[in-house]
């Protein structure tokens, strides 16, 4: 009995400590967010590593997601004679849910894991400690630009994901299955609302970008400085950010729609 209590207590205390360290790190990074202006090249470099290098996987995934949506949607809608609503179905599913969520999951796997591994290795090889020795704040020089680049990169990636996905649906629906192209687009324009659908999708992607970058940077910074610690931190980043994205998606959806 006491053993169960002790384990529960120890786990909760550990969780609280981790959360506390994460929030403190977040505050430090936000305090240093002027690094974007002062050391703009650093920020650009990170935007390249986090955003541009994630672009290929996002685009390839989006094409296939759009094509599958087109195919599945067509097969379902054609039973009701409503295949002209395919454009609406594809666009709404992408802007509201699939774009932000799938984009975020891919981003967590590609960019989040890389961020954690990079920062964790810097810590394991004592590069961060070396910087502190030279009176360079690693939070300012290393963490803040990466975090902020991640927050900015995901909404851009998701916007591209949505557009590419809609064209993927266009390829299947219009060019392969022969739906009227103007029905595809006009159905979309009549049903998709800018504020309710597009803007809420952008808000979602900002939240996801924030959460993933925060977890990734924190896990790297907090990793035990061994090869095992870095590998565990990388796994933790992918698992925790994927689960949080899916959970937060439910919360945000119930708040928004």
């Amino acid at each position: 009995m006491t053993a169960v209590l002790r384990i529960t207590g120890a786990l909760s205390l550990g969780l609280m400590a981790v959360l506390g360290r994460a929030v403190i790190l977040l505050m430090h990074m936000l305090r240093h967010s002027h690094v974007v202006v002062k050391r703009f090249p650093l920020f650009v470099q990170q935007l390249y590593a986090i955003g541009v290098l994630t672009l290929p996987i996002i685009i390839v995934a989006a094409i296939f997601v759009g094509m599958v949506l087109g195919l599945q949607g067509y097969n379902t809608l054609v039973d009701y004679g409503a295949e002209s609503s395919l454009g609406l179905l594809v666009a709404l599913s992408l802007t509201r849910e699939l774009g932000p969520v799938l984009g975020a999951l891919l981003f967590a796997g590609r960019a989040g894991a890389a961020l954690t591994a990079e920062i964790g290795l810097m810590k394991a090889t004592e590069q961060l400690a070396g910087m502190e020795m030279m009176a360079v704040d690693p939070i300012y020089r290393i963490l803040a630009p990466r975090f902020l680049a991640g927050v900015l990169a995901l909404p851009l990636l998701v916007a591209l994901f949505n557009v590419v996905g809609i064209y993927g649906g266009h390829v299947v629906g219009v060019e392969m299955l022969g739906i009227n192209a103007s029905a595809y687009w006009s159905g979309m324009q009549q049903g998709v609302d800018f504020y309710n659908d597009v803007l809420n999708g952008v808000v979602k992607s900002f939240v996801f970008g924030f959460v993933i970058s925060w977890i990734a940077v924190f896990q790297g910074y907090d990793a035990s400085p061994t090869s095992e610690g870095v590998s565990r931190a990388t796994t933790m980043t992918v698992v925790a950010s994927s689960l949080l994205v899916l959970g937060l998606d439910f919360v945000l959806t119930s708040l928004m729609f």
Partner: protein
Amino acid sequence: MHKPIVEIIVGLFVLAGLSALLFQSFRVGNLNGQAVVDPYTVRAYFDNIGGLKVRAPVTMAGVDIGRISSISLDPSSYRAVVELSVSGEYRNLPIDTSAAINTQGLLGEQYISLEPGGDPTYLKDGDRIKLTQSAIVLENMIGQFLFGNKGE
């Protein structure tokens, strides 16, 4: 470290992302809402608007000539007040034009169809359409049909 090529690629990436956002706003969503050009507003009162929604089309002879700009309830007469914003291109609608709520197909979206009258004076901004025909509620019709048959 800061090669110009990297900066150019990042610039391209940011621009592509932003233009994707713009594309979503205008081509996918309807931020400009296929805006009605130079609109004027007329009101119509209905006993029942069924499932009519704001931004549904207003047509005459099947041609799209405007959008519904707002729907509210008149608290004194308990009737629905629908404001139609009609394109300025069609200012010469007779004052005795009638409005009916129709459905596109059996289960489609509802819209307002205007039927021109013969009066020589035209509707002005803020005028009220007097002749209206409410939405046909399918359930009521079925109920009437069953009830009518029993009565006979």
